[in-house]
């Protein structure tokens, strides 16, 4: 505690009060410009203070994180801001290229970051680089597979995705309502790889989804499917994995996940620096911290959701218990069996959106 300063006369002079009020209001409006703050726009896992506390202390800086729930929301935040409002972005790896093409991102010096320690499988050159320059580095990944309640469901039975169409699972399934991963997973059930999806085979995929819907209890966003699984309303979440259940391991150890035989989708987030940032050195330090083994170990176990750290060297800093929840040992096999999100051309994306909308409203 600092020394208590002697009490000052309390008479408030009107003009002074007005100036103070204006100054406070001004701070609220232009707060982003304060040099001692770093502004991050990211998925909610970056919001956990535990992930950046050491960075704040080491650099005497305050980290502000604004979270978004979908790339659409991110777009609106960026559209409403002016250059310099944001320093750091964390986004689906596949979407880095969109930001880079819009001229929003700063090229990253490859030598400055531990790229060699990162799982080589999760780099996405076609999405993270443009004209030979790198704009994003993968920081975290996980899967869209099956989350389930091991008390009520036998993993051996559902490791084949088509088992989900069995009437015995009627009303026991929740579908995570991200059209992109759901359609691609349904494609895998038909032996169609994600990059093979087209207008011709879409009806077949839609047919599978329809059957799946008939067995499903509900469609929902992450909180909804998570709640349904946790409350016992459903036993399986189609599209779920570690990001849904690993964080609940302390209280609900029976909730776990698997990557099916047919494989699954792999989500990845990448980190980048905004071109308009006015404190690029600090931003660079933040990226370095986030990718460091220490930062990665913390980030993997963020309170909002867990995921695999991109940096393999985080391993020794993560407990065996946590590793088990992340299914650490299986990663080489999982990486091989999974498909990273891909950029779809606008026509196909539109078709997928409409297919999904029709399915959900059917």
């Amino acid at each position: 505690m600092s020394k208590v300063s002697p009490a000052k006369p309390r008479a408030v002079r009107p003009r002074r009060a007005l100036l103070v009020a204006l100054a406070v209001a001004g701070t609220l409006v232009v707060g982003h410009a304060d040099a001692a703050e770093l502004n991050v726009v990211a998925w909610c896992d970056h919001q956990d203070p535990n992930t950046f506390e050491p960075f704040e202390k080491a650099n005497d800086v305050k980290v502000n994180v604004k979270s978004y729930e979908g790339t659409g929301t991110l777009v609106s935040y960026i559209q409403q801001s002016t250059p310099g409002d944001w320093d750091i972005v964390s986004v689906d790896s596949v979407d880095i290229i969109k930001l880079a093409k819009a001229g929003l991102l700063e090229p990253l010096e490859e030598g400055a970051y531990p790229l060699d320690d990162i799982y080589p499988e999760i780099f996405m050159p076609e999405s993270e680089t443009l004209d030979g320059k790198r704009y994003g580095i993968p920081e975290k990944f996980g899967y869209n597979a099956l989350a389930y309640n091991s008390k009520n469901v036998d993993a051996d039975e559902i490791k084949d995705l088509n088992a989900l169409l069995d009437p015995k699972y009627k009303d026991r399934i929740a579908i995570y309502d991200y059209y992109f991963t759901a359609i691609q997973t349904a494609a895998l059930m038909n032996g169609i790889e994600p990059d093979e999806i087209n207008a011709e085979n879409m009806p077949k995929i839609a047919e599978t989804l329809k059957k799946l819907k008939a067995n499903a209890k509900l469609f929902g966003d992450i909180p909804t499917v998570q709640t349904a699984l946790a409350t016992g309303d459903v036993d399986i979440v189609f599209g779920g994995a570690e990001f849904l259940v690993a964080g609940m391991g302390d209280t609900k150890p029976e909730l776990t996940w698997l990557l099916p035989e047919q494989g699954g989708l792999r989500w990845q987030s990448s980190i980048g620096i905004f071109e308009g940032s006015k404190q690029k050195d600090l931003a660079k330090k933040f990226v370095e911290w986030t990718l460091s083994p220490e930062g990665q170990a913390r980030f993997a176990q963020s309170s909002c959701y867990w995921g695999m750290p991109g940096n393999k060297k985080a391993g020794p800093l993560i407990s065996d218990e946590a590793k088990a929840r992340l299914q650490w040992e299986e990663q080489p096999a999982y990486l091989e069996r999974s498909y990273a999100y891909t950029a779809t051309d606008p026509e196909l994306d539109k078709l997928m959106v409409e297919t999904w909308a029709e399915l959900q409203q059917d």
Partner: protein
Amino acid sequence: MRKGLWPTLYLFPASALFVLFFVLPLAAMIWMSFYQQQGFVLGTEATLANYLNFFSKPYYLQALWNSLWMGMVVTGISLLIAYPLAYILSFHASATWQRIGIMVCMLPFWTSYVVRSYSWLLALSNNGVVSQAADSIGFFPAVGLANTTAATIIGFVHFFVMLLSLTIFSSLVRIPRSYIRAAQDLGAGWPSVFTRIIWPLSLPGVIAGVMLTFVLTLGDYVTPQILGGGKELVLTQVIMLQVQRQGNFPMAGAINLVLMAISIAVTLIANRAISKASR
């Protein structure tokens, strides 16, 4: 001159806020709805495409129908429960019980929408209190109510019964008791007293409550999103999908304006009906 000017000046902060936080965003939304989202930017040509899209795609129309259907069902059920409640409260309760009743009716307004919805989700889930209770009585199969349209209706009805009770109660207590005495005195039995005196005179409160219930049900996103299970989307959920998944603000704006038009129409009709009923 001075006298004429000052009141206008006093109004300025309120009008400025109104323009800044209501008129401008609304104008922006209307303007935007006539453009198309192309990646990160808006198209350059004004077009009706978003609206045409809305009225030609079955899933949008289905969502519209789901919303209207939800509004009607919720309003209907809420009215059936709220009217008798308000009636008992205004005619058969002491002043103390009336105060308690009104307090109870106000309670839902003090709790967060989100918290209320999640409470219902937990109560209705397989391990929840409602399901357990229903199960132990063997009364009805409440198991599995969470994440269904029925759950959305329950969540809505819980809230709107209270709202409707208040509006109906406010109409009922204002009916002079001498009207009822006069009707009885002139030979009316209870059914006639109700149908010819009480019901017509409570109509302003009924219509106001019905209008509020319908419009608020139509415009609510949280309750169906948390409780509904997502197998039958309402219009607000479709709007949010456009925003969150697609980042398609123009389309979201267009759908929203359709929703607004319906709400405004319902409000206008209700206002006319109220002024007619209370004339």
